[in-house]
């Protein structure tokens, strides 16, 4: 029983990171119907920039308290990621709005390779150790243990998601975003500049990815130039699972995927009589994805149909 609670909690921690990243995918997809394949790399850049800020500060001011370092890292990494995303959108996506559908996909792949290589040159090809900034003694939560950093992940992800919902549902910018995703032409007639809205959606997603990057780095104590790819892929899976283009769907999909992965990795050995082991963890997200798309192609909360070019 306790193991079950533990696995679910671990899954929720993992899932809230997926959810943060999935929101970035789904926001852009909802407006442009474009898979921003380079979104995972933005997360990686966020983690790397955060790591650099933290190690510089630790070098300059030894004994600086952990939470302060975290805030400092975010103060630098969020604007950097937003700048990267804005630049990407302006240079590689906007000129291709009316091009064949595959063209932006290829530029996205190109961007992803460029960002990875740049990170490899700047931060060395070897994995970097992410220092522990919070106390490591686990806390008891509902019959299971959570490290303080895991608690931080849960809480900060929840707060950020709530803020995003407020922004999208209650502010003028959010209304503009929804209008553009409904019909860019009508939005123009209502005095909305779609280019501005699209750029802002990219930047919002990047800000969330920057936070997610820091959280992932903290959680696994490691940062690497390839860390964004698989994470981005799984987050995209989460977005599709929840119904792409749908914000609550992305959150639900992320959390579900996290829990499924965690439970799957924990129990697959028993279920298959030891034939398959926990190293099949990465398979679950894809199996779930394929299953959902076959049974309910529009995702759990999505209203759009998949049968669209």
């Amino acid at each position, binding site marked *: 029983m306790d193991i079950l609670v533990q696995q679910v909690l671990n899954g929720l921690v993992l899932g809230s990171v997926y959810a943060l990243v999935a929101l970035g995918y789904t926001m852009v997809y909802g407006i442009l119907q474009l898979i921003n394949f380079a979104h995972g790399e933005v997360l990686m850049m966020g983690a790397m920039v955060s790591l650099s800020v933290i190690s510089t500060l630790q070098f300059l001011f030894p004994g600086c308290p952990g939470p302060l370092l975290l805030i400092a890292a975010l103060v630098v990494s969020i604007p950097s990621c937003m700048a990267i995303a804005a630049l990407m959108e302006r240079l590689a996506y906007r000129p291709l709005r009316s*091009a*064949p559908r595959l*063209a932006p996909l*290829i530029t996205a792949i190109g961007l992803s390779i460029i960002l990875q*290589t740049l990170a*490899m040159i700047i931060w060395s090809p070897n994995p970097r150790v992410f220092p522990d900034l919070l106390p490591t003694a686990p806390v008891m939560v509902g019959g299971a243990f959570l490290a303080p950093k895991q608690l931080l992940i849960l809480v900060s992800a929840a707060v950020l998601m709530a803020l995003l919902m407020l922004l999208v549902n209650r502010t003028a910018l959010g209304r503009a975003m929804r209008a553009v995703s409904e019909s860019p032409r009508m939005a123009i007639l209502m005095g909305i500049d779609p280019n501005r809205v699209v750029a802002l959606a990219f930047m919002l997603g990047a800000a969330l990815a920057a936070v997610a990057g820091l959280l992932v780095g903290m959680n696994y104590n490691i940062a690497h130039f390839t860390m964004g790819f698989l994470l981005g892929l799984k987050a995209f899976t989460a977005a*599709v699972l929840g119904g792409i283009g749908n914000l609550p769907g992305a959150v639900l999909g992320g959390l579900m995927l996290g829990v499924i992965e965690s439970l799957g990795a924990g129990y697959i050995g028993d279920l298959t009589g030891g034939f398959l082991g926990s190293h099949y963890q990465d398979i679950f997200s894809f199996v779930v*994805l394929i299953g959902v798309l076959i049974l309910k192609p529009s995702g759990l909360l999505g209203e759009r149909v998949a049968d*669209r070019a």
Partner: protein
Amino acid sequence: MKRNAQLGLLLTGLALFLLPFAAGLLGDAWIRILAFSLLYMMLALGLNIVVGYAGLLDMGYVAFYAVGAYSYALLASPHLTDHFPVLAQAFPAGLHLSAWIAIPLAAGLAALFGVLLGFPVLRLRGDYLAIVTLGFGEIIRIFLNNLNAPLNITNGPQGLARIDPVRLGPISFAEPLSVLGVVIPSAQLYYTLFLLLTLLVMLISIRLEHSRIGRAWMAIREDEIAAKAMGINTRNMKLLAFALGASFGGVSGAMFAAFQGFVSPESFVLSESVVIVAMVVLGGMGHVQGVALGALLLYAIPEGLRYVARPLQLELFGAEWIAPEALRMLLFGLSLVLIMLLRPRGLWAPTRGGSA
């Protein structure tokens, strides 16, 4: 005029067969690069059937390459007989199937996987299809990586070694062949075989493009509902595209296994799929010559850079600023972005036949 064209074609063909002699002067490594670019050309042409003709974005194409490579490797290496006593009894001399049987088997198995993938995704289009096929590719790779216990089928991350080379009568392609005093290195023998296969794949592609099947694929690509209304069996046509594309991938995979003598899951990572898709889109979807050009550019140039980058930097700056591998990837990414921005329909797009 017609005569000149034929003569031109003949000369080009002859030049292609003689090319490795020139490349060999620079070093055997260059012959290998040429051989590998042909392998990628075959892969890109196979994917072109799925993506270019039928308009189904398959991002997990490397899975079929892997299936082909592993089926050849298993059929033509001692691995299976080493690990399964039952098989060892049945084949006391080892399971060394001739390449000429193993290659069609690999192609058939890959085609079967193509249909297996095709069935569940028949209803999906566009981005959803892309992401599901991508997941399929990863699943295959994860299985290859982990199927070494409890039954050792793929030997896990260590991969399969001691794979037999292709043999033609008494000639083994793994050893240099000496004909009338001219020594032809092993890589060149494979190059010649790959060249013949690539030409065959090109011929099949072009003939398909102008056939009833090709027209049906393109109709599906342009508008699936309209295609259905015209009486095209879209289900069978899509499955056929998946199966044919996959079988080309399977042949390339088998050739890869024979050429390398070794396969491991590392060769079939997702980024390989991505590169193959990039070759097709960059060259010009649905255009055989364009796709071949795309494959050549995206494989040979970055590979060549590996040998040129270091001396060139030493010459220009007096020091190595960027590692060749990093420079290669940087230029690769940059060229993908730039070419798409400047020519969104591909470098050598088809002149007729509408948009994709």
